[in-house]
């Protein structure tokens, strides 16, 4: 078997989710090639070459791949896919964008967000916001797969010594243009890579009150997240959102503050190793997934927690 993993990167280095995707590829088994596609991304390719277990790094460095537009990335993936039995990428907004496009161009189905590898053609994936797990078998000749990265450990970033080979890039599709990225500005660790996350919900009442969580996050080296309700109420920006329709995370410790625990929020955090819920409503569904529940007014409990740390 031969597997192509499409790496997510920022031109200089790999995004962590790529390392989890490599692990999923290793579980399928076979030679693993990593594709780095972008404009001015040679440094990311060098980083990719160090990843343990990688056979070759394919470098597609071209102006047409600026902004990694789905049309151009998908065309590149299609031009390479014939050499592989499996094509994998992380189920991030990057991977979810181009992979179904590539699959349709190849007339293959896509297997979305696998959480477990059973065999080379059989996988488990969550459905209904993780309320059920479907075991599916694919009959396609090339398996195009996105990987739920929280379900796979990260591959070692070093220890490999893959060769970097340049690959040809098709012409710009001309269908779309990258205008810009307004990156969220945070000095904290990224939600998706943090080992501790503290999230606030509607119970926080306003954006100002989220600063209470900042202080605890600073002490614990944690990332700050939020429920959809808090985001929709305008307390915090959308990239804070943890849930079925936001980020799916599985940190070592997840602290839910003033979050009731809607199905769609639970889908985004219930694989966390340890879950703490602080909520004044003892009936809140969040307590059903919490390892430690504290029924208390958050405006008393949070400052107290801050002091105790």
């Amino acid at each position: 078997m031969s597997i192509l993993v499409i790496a997510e990167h920022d031109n200089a280095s790999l995004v962590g989710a790529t390392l989890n995707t490599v692990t999923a590829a290793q579980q399928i088994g076979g030679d693993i090639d990593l594709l780095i596609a972008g404009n001015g991304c040679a440094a990311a390719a060098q980083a990719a070459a160090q990843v343990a277990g990688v056979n070759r790094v394919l470098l597609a460095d071209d102006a047409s791949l600026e902004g990694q537009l789905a049309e151009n990335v998908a065309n590149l993936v299609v031009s390479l896919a014939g050499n592989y039995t499996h094509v994998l990428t992380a189920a991030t907004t990057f991977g979810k964008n181009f992979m179904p496009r590539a699959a349709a161009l190849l007339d293959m189905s896509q297997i979305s967000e696998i959480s477990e590898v059973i065999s080379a053609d059989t996988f488990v994936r969550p459905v209904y916001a993780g309320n059920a797990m479907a075991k599916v078998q694919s009959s396609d000749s090339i398996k195009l797969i996105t990987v739920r990265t929280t379900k796979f450990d990260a591959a070692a970033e070093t220890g490999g010594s893959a060769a970097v080979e340049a690959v040809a890039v098709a012409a710009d599709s001309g269908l779309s243009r990258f205008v810009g990225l307004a990156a969220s500005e945070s000095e904290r660790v990224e939600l998706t890579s943090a080992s501790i996350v503290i999230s606030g919900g509607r119970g926080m009442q306003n954006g100002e009150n989220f600063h209470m969580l900042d202080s605890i996050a600073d002490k614990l080296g944690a990332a700050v997240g939020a429920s959809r309700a808090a985001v929709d109420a305008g307390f915090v920006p959308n990239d804070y959102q943890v849930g079925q329709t936001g980020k799916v995370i599985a940190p070592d410790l997840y602290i839910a503050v003033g979050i009731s625990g809607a199905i769609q929020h639970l889908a985004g955090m219930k694989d966390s190793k340890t879950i703490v819920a602080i909520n004044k409503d003892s009936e809140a569904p969040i307590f059903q997934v919490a390892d430690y529940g504290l029924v208390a007014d958050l405006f008393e409990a949070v400052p107290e927690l801050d002091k105790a740390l």
Partner: protein
Amino acid sequence: MKVLVGVKRVLDPQVKARVKADKSGIDLTNAKMTMNPFDENAVEEAIRLREAGTVEEVVALSIGAAKSEETLRNALALGADRAILVLTEDVLEPLAIAKVFKAIVEKESPDLVLVGKQAIDDDCNQTGQMLSALLGWPQATFASKLELADGTAQVTREVDSGLETINVNMPAVVSVDLRLNEPRYASLPNVMKAKRKPLEKMDLADLGLDTANRMTTIEVMEPPARAAGVIVESVAELVEKLRNEAKVI
């Protein structure tokens, strides 16, 4: 300008999905069904474009069982002008749905296709991307802002690292995220009016497409249950447990 909007009938998101005892799938018997929430945003956006005078006609499309007519009537009550239902009792994969959708696009020649970014039942997040690929059109996924001008669409996309803006040629397929707009509710008079709006039905078989599924569902299982937790009495006890029992801080 004409907009074609895709809508899917799904289990109501407030209802907990229950796995059937024989593990063949989710038990939908007598379950409350509704329009996929992301599709509600797509319908809302299409209607707003028509209200703004940018669009003349909004056509809603559903591909599924006969009861999907309820979902289309809902779209009509919200303001769609007419609806198309492609009937099939089979549960099609997104690739097959995209092929059917493409056949309807070729009949209707819309300038813009709007779909929800994912259906909350299979959580696939594929149909919009696949449809645009099959049509050779550009795609703009996870849209939280849409502006049409001079034959292009400027779309703000919700991505993991923030908000990305792209500009795509029209016609295009745009898949929408929840923050694009706040969907309206259908008023009772509009619900009544929707019953008389045109709804065209056709059989999937008559379209002559290869819609065979590529995947077999071997079984559907309950997710692993979490062990029951404990209620702590104080912040001090919580910190003690996190330090000495869970050893996470």
